C-alpha cells in the first residue's frame, strides 16, 4: 500500500536501500562528450552551482535555480535526530517531527497540507539518528508561502495536549506496523543497537513505547526551543526561482527570527564518544519473533563516519557485493547456490560513526537442512564472498559496471528538484558542504580495485563484530 522510503532492493522488508541510490549529486553531462565516449570512461562532471547564503541569525541557505521546472522543492534540514532524544524519551525526535505539522502562532493544525497538497504539491518528513528533514514540493508560484510557513513553525510552534496525544498514537501505530507487524521489522530495528558503539546511536529511532507514552508537553516546548532554531537549520530551495527574489523573501520571513543566546549544540558532543562501549569479542546473537517465514541473518562490522576518506571505497565494495542481479552475493548465494532468498550489503555511515551491514534471508525448506544449519551455512557463504572480494581478482569490467550503475542512479536522482535537494542536504550536513555531493561522486568514480581491497582489509577482514540470527520463536 505505501511506498517504502526507498524501494527495498532485495529483502522482503528492509526499508533501506542498497549502496547509493539517491545519494550523490551529479551534474549534467556534456552531451557531445557522452555520445562520443563509452560511459565507463572517466567523465568530466561540472559542479552544480549552488548559491549559498548565511543570515545573521545563523540560518544557512542553499539554492539552485532551475529554469523551466514547474515545481519548487523547499526543504528544511535540522541538525537534530534520535541521538538527541532526551533521557528516558527514546523516539522523541521522531515524535517531534510529527508534531511539527501541528499548529503555530498563525497556523492551524495540518496547515502545511493546505499549503502543499491542496494546491497540487506535497510534503513529507523523516528523522534519522543525526537529522530531521522537512520536505515540500509546490508549484513554483507558491514558494514564498512555504517560506512563510517554514519560518512560522521554526519559531512559533504551538502544540496542545490533544495534538500530542493523537500524534503519539499515530507514532505507536507506526511502530506496530513497521516493526511489529512486518515479519522482518524487529531484525531491522535491532541493527543500530548491535552495530553502533555510541550510546546515542544505539537507540532505535522509533523509540520504545513506554518512552513515547511518557512524553509531555513541556518536553515538546523544551525540545523545540533547544533544537529548532535558525542557527541549527539549513534551508534548501531548488526549482524555477529568481535568486534575487528568493534572497529577499528569505530575509523577509527568516531574517526576523532570533537564535537563542545559548549556542546551539551543533552535532553530537565529542565528549559522548568516550561513552562508546568498548569493542568486545565477536558475538552471535539470536533474535526471535512470532512470524518469521524464512530465517534471516545480519552481519555487522564497525565502520568510519560518513565524511571519512574511506567512505567512497566502502560504497563501491558494498555495490560490488550486492548491487544488482550480477553482484557477487546475488550471483553466488541467490542464483548459483540457491541458499538465499535475498541478500544485501550496505554502508550505514552516520555523522560520528558507521557500520557495514550484510544480510541474507534463507530460502524456504524444500528439503534443505533445518534453520539452524541453514543460517550457519549462509553466514559462511556470505563471508566467503567478502573474502574473495578482498583477496581475489576484481576485473576491470566488474568495476566499470558498478561505477556505471552508481553514476546512473545518481543521474536518476537529478531528475527532480526534490532529488537534487536531497543530495545537497545530505552532503551539507554529513560531508561538510553541498559541493561535496559532486566531489563525493567524482571520488566514487575514481575508486579502483586496490582501494576496494584496502578498505575491506581494514574494516571487513575479521569476523563481523555481531552476527544477528533471526528466526521464528518456538510456539508456546
Amino acid at each position: 500500500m505505501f511506498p517504502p522510503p526507498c524501494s527495498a532492493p532485495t529483502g522482503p522488508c528492509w526499508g533501506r536501500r542498497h549502496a547509493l541510490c539517491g545519494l550523490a549529486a551529479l551534474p549534467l553531462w556534456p552531451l557531445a562528450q557522452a555520445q562520443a565516449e563509452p560511459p565507463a570512461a572517466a567523465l568530466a562532471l561540472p559542479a552544480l552551482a549552488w548559491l549559498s547564503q548565511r543570515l545573521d541569525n545563523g540560518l544557512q541557505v542553499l539554492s539552485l535555480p532551475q529554469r523551466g521546472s514547474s515545481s519548487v522543492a523547499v526543504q528544511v534540514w535540522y541538525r537534530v535526530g534520535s541521538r538527541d532524544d532526551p533521557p528516558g524519551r527514546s523516539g522523541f525526535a521522531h515524535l517531534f517531527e510529527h508534531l511539527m505539522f501541528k499548529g503555530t502562532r498563525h497556523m492551524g493544525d495540518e496547515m502545511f497540507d493546505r499549503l502543499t497538497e491542496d494546491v497540487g504539491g506535497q510534503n513529507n518528513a523523516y528523522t534519522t539518528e543525526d537529522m530531521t528533514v522537512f520536505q515540500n514540493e509546490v508549484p513554483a508560484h507558491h514558494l514564498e508561502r512555504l517560506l512563510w510557513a517554514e519560518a512560522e513553525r521554526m519559531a512559533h510552534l504551538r502544540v496542545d495536549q490533544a495534538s500530542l496525544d493523537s500524534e503519539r498514537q499515530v507514532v505507536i501505530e507506526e511502530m506496530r506496523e513497521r516493526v511489529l507487524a512486518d515479519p522482518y521489522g524487529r531484525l531491522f530495528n535491532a541493527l543500530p543497537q548491535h552495530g553502533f558503539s555510541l550510546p546515542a546511536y544505539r537507540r532505535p529511532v522509533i523509540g520504545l513505547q513506554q518512552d513515547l507514552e511518557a512524553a509531555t508537553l513541556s518536553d515538546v516546548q523544551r525540545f523545540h526551543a533547544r533544537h529548532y532554531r535558525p542557527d541549527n537549520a539549513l534551508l534548501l530551495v531548488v526549482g524555477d526561482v529568481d535568486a534575487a527574489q528568493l534572497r529577499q523573501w528569505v530575509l523577509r520571513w527568516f531574517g526576523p527570527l532570533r537564535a537563542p543566546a545559548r549556542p546551539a549544540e551543533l552535532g553530537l558532543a565529542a565528549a559522548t564518544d568516550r561513552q562508546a562501549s568498548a569493542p568486545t569479542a565477536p558475538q552471535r546473537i539470536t533474535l526471535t519473533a512470532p512470524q518469521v517465514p524464512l530465517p534471516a541473518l545480519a552481519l555487522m562490522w564497525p565502520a568510519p563516519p560518513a565524511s571519512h576518506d574511506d567512505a567512497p571505497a566502502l560504497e563501491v565494495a558494498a555495490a560490488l557485493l550486492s548491487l544488482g542481479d550480477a553482484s557477487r552475493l546475488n550471483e553466488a548465494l541467490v542464483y548459483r547456490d540457491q541458499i538465499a532468498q535475498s541478500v544485501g550489503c550496505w554502508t550505514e555511515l552516520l555523522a560520528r560513526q558507521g557500520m557495514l551491514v550484510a544480510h541474507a534471508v534463507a530460502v524456504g525448506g524444500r528439503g534443505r537442512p533445518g534453520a539452524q544449519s541453514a543460517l550457519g551455512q549462509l553466514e559462511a557463504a556470505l563471508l566467503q564472498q567478502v573474502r574473495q572480494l578482498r583477496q581475489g581478482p576484481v576485473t576491470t569490467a566488474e568495476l566499470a559496471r558498478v561505477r556505471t550503475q552508481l553514476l546512473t542512479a545518481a543521474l536518476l536522482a537529478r531528475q527532480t528538484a526534490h532529488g537534487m535537494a536531497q543530495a545537497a542536504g545530505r552532503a551539507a550536513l554529513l560531508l561538510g558542504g553541498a559541493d561535496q555531493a559532486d566531489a563525493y561522486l567524482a571520488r566514487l568514480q575514481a575508486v579502483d580495485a586496490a582501494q576496494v581491497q584496502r578498505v575491506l582489509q581494514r574494516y571487513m577482514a575479521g569476523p563481523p563484530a555481531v552476527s544477528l540470527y533471526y528466526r521464528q520463536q518456538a510456539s508456546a
Partner: protein
Amino acid sequence: MNGPAWAGLRRRHLLGAAAGAIGPARPLVWAATEAATKAATDTKSDDSSQPPAPQPVQPWRPPPVFEQRLANGLTVLTVPRPGLPLVSAQLLLRVGAEADPSGQPGVAAMTATLLAKGARRQGQDLGAVALARQVEALGGTLDSGSGWHRSSLAITVTTPQLPAALALLCDMLRQPLLSAPELDRARAQALDQWALTMASAEELAGLLLRRVVWGPSGYGRLATAAALRRLTRRPLQQFHARHYRPEQSALVLAGDITPRTALRLAHGMLGDWRAAAAPTPAVPMPALPPAHAPSLAPALWLLHLPGNSQCAVTLAAPSAGDPSTDPDDAWPVGLVSNAVLGGGYSARLNQAIRIRRGLSYGAFSSVQSLPLGGLFSASAMTRPASAAQVLQLMRDELNRLASSAPPAAELAARQASLLGSLARRLDTSSGLAGWVGEQWLRARPLHQLAEQAERILAVSPAQVQGFAARHWADEGLDAGTGRQRAVVAGDILGGGTAWDTVAARRLSLAELDLNRLGLVAAR
C-alpha cells in the same frame, strides 16, 4: 543513500495505479488550484499573520507524445524531453494474466519473469547471469512484469547506452529461452515469496478480498503455491508464441531522444519481428460482476492470524470500469471521488482514521479500472482492538459521501492534489514512459489526454455524490445491497468483543484455501 531508518515517516499514498491524465499545453494544473487558497491570500504580504499571496501562475506544458507505427503493426511512442542524458525504454504487450490458459494461473506472469533469465543473442544462448551482467554494465535496472492485460520489459539508461539496452530488451522479448532450469529457479523464488505473503496480514487481506469480490474467475484468479508447483515449460512457450506479437506491442521511449531516432532504432531492432504462431481467437474472460459471487456471502470475512500484532482492514466496492468499455465514461468521476475519499494524505479516510483519531499510521484508497469492471478498495492497518472501529469509519465515510455532496473548496483541493501528483509523475523519464504506456495499454487515444485532465477538473460535487451513491453506498454489510465487501485479517480474537455481534464468515489461516471455490479448506 543508505535509507534513513525512519525515512518517509509521514507516509503518503502514491496514486500510481490511478494515474492517467495530463494537462494540456496551458497552465491548467496550477491555475485550477487557486480557488483552494484564495481565502487566505487577500492580505498584504508584509503581514506575518497570514501566508503571503501566491505569485502569478506560471505555465506548465506537458511534453508532446509522438505516435508512429512499423509495418508489422508495432506502435512506437516517443516523448522527447531534452535535458539530462537519460532515456527510459519500455516494451509493452497488451496481454497478461487474463490470457492464462484455463486452470493454469501464473503462466503469463512466469513467462514475463523468465524473459530476463535467458535469451538467444547473436546466435548464442545466454543464461541469466550473462544477461544480468550485460544489462547492469549499461547502468540500468531491468524491470520485467505482467498484470491484467499487460506484460512489460523496462529499463532507464544514459543516452549513449540506449541502443545496446534496447537490443537487449528486444532479444529478451523476441527470443527468450524459457528454459526448464530457470523455470525451476523462478518457481522456487516465487514459492518463497508466497511464504512471505502468507505471513503478512496486509497481503493476505488483499488476496482474500480479491477473491471475495471477484469470485474464482476473472480477476479473482490467483497464482497460488499449488498453481506455481504445477507450472511447466510447455505452456510458457505456447503462451509466448501465441501472445507475444508485434501488433499487440508498443515501444515507448521517453527522455533524451527524438521521434526520428526512436523510429530508426525500432525499425532496426523490431522491424523484422513476426509472431511465431497465428493469433488465437480472443477468449473472453468469464466476467463476474463484483460482489455477486453467491458462494462468497456474507460480505464480511474475518481471517484470524493469531499473534499478529496489527490487523489489516480492507474494504471494497464497485467502481467505474475502463473508459474504453464504460458507456457512461464515469472514469474521471471515479478518480475524483476516490481522491476525495482516500486518494491522499488529507483525504477523508486518513482524516477520520489517522489525523483525527490516531487509529492508524495511514488509511488510503484507490480505484482500479479494468475492461471487465472497476473496483474501489480501501485499507488501513490498526491494532486488533481498533479494527472494528476502523472498518465502521471507512463504511461511514463511503456512505457519507453518497448522502451529501462534498463542499466545493474540498473538492477543488482534492482535484488539485490529484493533478499535482500526476504532474510530478511526469518529472522523471520513467514516470513519463510509464504514463504514456498506460494510455496505450488501455487504448486511450493519446490526443485526448489533455481533455482528460480538463474532465477531471470539470467533475462537480453533485457528480461525486452521485457516483458514491450509485457505486459505493451500502447500508449494512450483513443486510445491505451487497456493494461493500470487507476483509479483516489479524488477531481477530485479540480484538475483544467488538466482533461478537457482527455477521461474518470467520476462519483461521489453517482453514483458508485460496484454491477452493468457497475458500475454506476441505476437512
